[in-house]
């Protein structure tokens, strides 16, 4: 495939501009006459709005206008919606409460947007926002999922009595209960998956531009999927028809899921631009990001895992309550259901599974997909349970897993997923060897001699990526299909533009997508440009999340390339007076196989556009489009091992080694894959040891609203990672790719908590395992 093709460790093309500060992000965009927005936000977790008085704010220096939710509603702008319909087990549809882009009746979390101020400068906008007088009637608040379900809890939405959004199940409850009743051993455990703030490096921003002459809107925004943003704003929020709305997501500095969703700010800035006649830009500050970006995780679960006398898992029963926050965000309902419970079989042959999931409203910011989205919750639950079972049964955690591995494929789980390929033992073996598992007891003794407590833990994860087959997700309630599009445009001199509906916000598509084309055609990487993120340039696309860009987005490029190649071969055959079946493409030339007769790529391209001598009936040009709809999810899997040393005096955990053995199928660029794994591990380790969103349970105030209190992992919190890759190519897509973007965040938390609980000698520990919590867990009274 050559030095720049698939498999090459090519340096990222986009890094020059990122590393030299030349990236162009939404906040860098400037439109003539542009003004600045500040949102007036609720200081209360739950309150009725008696009145909003904007008179003083409007009189402030530099203020263009102050607009509120009544005006927005009067102009016909719709409420925000959740785009995935889930039905409760009684058949009733999920209970979606109204999420107004600007609240004018009730606010339901600290940070809920109430009004927008547009002013000459962001400072003046902020000054005026402070001058908006709102008369609130404070209401009691509830922030945690279990208390929200209790009788007498504050009620958030009249549509959802008892704050219950849906009560959903998957699997076979009777078969599961029967297997548990007949089990030789049942492991029971309660699992809490802590709530996280996504914290991309670039906070959200948007610039709304209304052109009155054309009655046309342009929206620059920090989006992982600009086309979906346009679709939703057009079809549901009534901002403008699609042909009158261009959405551009330029360079985007990280998303991790939080930039999938449409938030109130994009809608309101577009509307405000029309109302005020000026372009309106809003840029979040970091505290605003903590308050208003969709959070992740926040599950509480009870688990029973049943074993027969031979230690084979016979059943798994899960009862989960998931906190969705104050409103249902765009894909929030899918995360604790189809992205979570469908992965509860893990890497194991489990004959019977039943999961019940209740989702609840609380007075917190909405919760939606965050790196891994449901799959980290499933993996943490399953791998903590498996480790606990091994301890209870007195067997090696590796052997217990090995005994229960799925070994033949395809494998149909009891919870929808059909695994297409995998070799779980290969990753387990590779990880154990890399970690010198066998030598651990010696290292534990050495640590003990220094007064330290050493522990080791593993996690065998599986995830479903490459989302997703459109018909399948449609049958499960998705409001959209999850295919991807590509367009390959060969210019007259042979250079190439690839337009993709995938969106890069750190993943390196400008390099990997170009590698695919370079390897295929043998043309230099520099001659290939990747175009994405603009609804006026790229045909409809579905964006980037769920580790789908390689498996789905690049597969679409392959299909378009197939068409381009076929036409180029026809032209070359015609030029060389040969049979098109005999033409091969090698090193940037089209060649008659077995001869030295060639025509360079650029000449074929030129011939396509001069059209002086094309085969009879052929259209000029060399440009093809394709849509790719996957036939199945992909199933990356692997084994992670964490080894920790705990200082019992302070409770501080040091990760002394971390081994990741991943099967991502075929790999386009190993360096980028390693970077994705490193980043994912950092986030998973962050969840396990450091990060936690903390709302005051009484007042609903967010106490972790800055980096002074929200502990993001830093370089010195992390060890050097030991990585390896196993490969069972994905049979479902033309490149054999599975996806690698989320694995690190999925597999690492249970490995770490298994290691720490191994070190402290008991299981009574929740994430994040902060020094205080570990120290407390080591006290005799605990």
């Amino acid at each position: 495939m050559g030095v720049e093709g698939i498999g090459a460790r090519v340096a990222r093309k986009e890094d020059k501009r990122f590393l030299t500060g030349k990236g162009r992000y939404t906040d860098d965009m400037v439109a003539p006459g542009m003004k600045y927005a500040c949102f007036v936000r609720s200081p209360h977790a739950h309150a009725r709005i008696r009145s909003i008085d904007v008179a003083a704010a409007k009189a402030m220096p530099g203020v263009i206008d102050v607009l509120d939710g009544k005006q927005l509603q009067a102009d016909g702008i719709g409420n925000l919606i959740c785009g995935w319909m889930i039905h409760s087990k009684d058949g009733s549809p999920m209970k979606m409460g109204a999420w107004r882009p600007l609240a004018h009746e009730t606010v339901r979390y600290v940070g809920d947007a109430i009004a927008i101020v547009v002013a000459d400068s962001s400072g003046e906008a902020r000054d005026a926002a402070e001058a908006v007088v709102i008369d609130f009637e404070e209401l009691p608040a509830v922030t945690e999922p279990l208390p929200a379900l209790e009788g007498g809890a504050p009620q958030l939405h009249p549509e959802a009595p008892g704050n219950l959004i849906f009560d959903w199940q998957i699997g076979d409850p009777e078969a599961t209960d029967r297997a548990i009743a007949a089990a030789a051993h049942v492991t029971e455990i309660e699992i809490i998956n802590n709530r996280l703030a996504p914290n991309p490096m670039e906070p959200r921003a948007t610039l709304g531009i209304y052109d009155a002459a054309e009655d046309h809107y342009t929206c620059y925004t920090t989006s992982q999927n600009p086309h979906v943003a346009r679709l939703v704003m057009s079809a549901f929020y009534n901002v403008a028809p699609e042909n009158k709305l261009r959405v551009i997501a330029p360079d985007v500095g990280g998303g991790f899921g939080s930039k999938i969703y449409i938030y109130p700010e994009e809608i309101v800035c577009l509307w405000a631009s029309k109302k005020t006649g000026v372009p309106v830009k809003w840029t979040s500050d970091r505290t605003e990001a903590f308050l208003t970006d969709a959070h992740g995780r926040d599950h509480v679960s009870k688990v029973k895992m049943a074993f027969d006398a031979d230690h084979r898992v016979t059943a798994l029963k899960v009862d989960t309550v998931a906190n969705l926050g104050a409103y249902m965000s765009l894909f929030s309902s899918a995360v604790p259901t189809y992205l979570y419970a469908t992965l509860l079989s893990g890497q194991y042959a489990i004959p019977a599974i039943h999961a019940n999931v209740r989702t609840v409203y609380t007075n917190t910011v909405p919760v939606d997909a965050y790196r891994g989205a449901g799959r980290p919750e499933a993996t943490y639950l399953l791998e903590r349970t498996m480790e606990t079972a091994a301890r209870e049964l007195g067997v090696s955690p590796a052997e217990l897993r090995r005994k229960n591995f799925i070994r033949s494929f395809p494998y149909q789980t009891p919870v929808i997923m059909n695994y297409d390929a995998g070799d779980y033992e290969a990753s387990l073996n590779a990880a154990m060897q890399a970690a010198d598992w066998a030598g651990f007891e010696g290292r534990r003794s050495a640590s003990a001699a220094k007064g330290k407590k050493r522990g080791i833990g593993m996690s065998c994860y599986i995830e479903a990526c490459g989302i997703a087959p459109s018909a399948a997700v449609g049958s499960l309630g998705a409001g959209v299909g999850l295919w991807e599009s590509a367009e390959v445009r060969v210019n007259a001199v042979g250079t190439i533009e690839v337009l993709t509906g995938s969106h890069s916000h750190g993943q390196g598509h400008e390099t990997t997508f170009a590698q695919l084309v370079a390897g295929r055609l043998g043309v230099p990487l520099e001659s290939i440009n990747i175009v994405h993120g603009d609804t006026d340039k790229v045909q409809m696309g579905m964006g980037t999340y769920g580790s789908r860009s390689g498996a789905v987005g690049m597969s679409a490029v392959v299909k378009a390339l197939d068409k381009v190649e076929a036409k180029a071969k026809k032209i070359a055959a015609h030029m060389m007076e040969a049979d098109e079946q005999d033409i091969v493409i090698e090193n940037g030339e089209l060649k008659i196989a077995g001869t030295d007769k060639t025509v360079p790529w650029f000449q074929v391209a030129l011939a396509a556009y001069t059209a002086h001598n094309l085969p009879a009936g052929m259209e000029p040009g060399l440009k093809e489009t394709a849509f790719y709809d996957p036939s199945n999810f992909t199933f990356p899997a692997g084994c992670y091992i964490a080894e920790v040393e705990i200082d019992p005096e302070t409770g501080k955990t040091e990760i002394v080694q971390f081994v990741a053995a991943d099967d991502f199928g075929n790999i386009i660029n190993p360096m980028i894959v390693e970077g994705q794994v490193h980043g994912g591990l950092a986030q998973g380790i962050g969840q396990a040891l450091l990060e936690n969103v903390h709302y005051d349970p009484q007042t609903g105030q967010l106490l972790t609203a800055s980096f002074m209190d929200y502990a993001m992992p830093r370089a010195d919190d992390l060890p050097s990672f030991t990585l390896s890759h196993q490969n069972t190519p994905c049979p479902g897509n033309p490149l054999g790719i599975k996806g690698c973007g989320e694995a690190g965040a999925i597999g690492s938390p249970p490995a770490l908590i298994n290691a720490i609980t191994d070190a402290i000698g008991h299981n009574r520990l929740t994430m994040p395992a902060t020094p205080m919590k570990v120290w407390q867990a080591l006290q005799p009274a605990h």
Partner: protein
Amino acid sequence: MYATSYHRASSVEDAVRLHGHSEESKYVSGGMTLIATMKQRLASPSDLVDLRHIGSMKGISVDGRRVTIGAGTPHAEVAASQAIMAVCPALCHLASHIGDPHVRHMGTIGGSVANNDPAADYPSAVLALDATVVTDRRSIPADGFFAGLFETALAEDEIITAIAFDAPDKAGYAKFANPASRYAMTGVFVAKTGGTVRVAVTGAGSDGVFRHAGLEQALQGNWSPDAPGSVMVDPSGLMADMHADAQYRANLVKVMAKRAVMAAG
């Protein structure tokens, strides 16, 4: 940030004069706390008087064992000072762990001491070293300087010009950092001069930096890392927050005292 007027002072006298022009003036040195607080709109001084360009407030001098550090000296300079290293390496160690490299090149010892953040590192050193806080109008002994959270003996317009102390025979500092902010969740500075031991604790007290009599007594009788283990540290009066409750901080006071003594040797 709310609008503010910036003034660059050329001398200490000039600074006091500029400060007097408004009731809402604030001095700014490195600005590592004040500017961040202003950006969050939690502080809104009408006027900022910049002390960074006053030459007389900068620099380190060591005369025998007498150490004088100009209030405008950034942490990085203290951390790298060979002269201080020779007589009181614990202070270099402390300075080298404040914030991050950016903070250490901007933040100053005078600013830190004047701000008296309950989780800042320097106040513990000033108190344990029995240092003198030299201002534009007087000298204040450390025991009379710190007056509670963000409160000191300084008058509103008074400027710290230097911190001075006699280097002890032995000193050590150990800090357990808050996992998020990296401020001291508990930091203990120990100093021994002849038969006298002073132990100052930062990051833990609900009233800011404080001396711990029990630890001082124990270490005076037995200068050993084992000594703090038998001391009762009362959790009442210690801070409690989501990162560390009072009980855990009480434990950290003992453990950091032990490690500070180990570091002091």
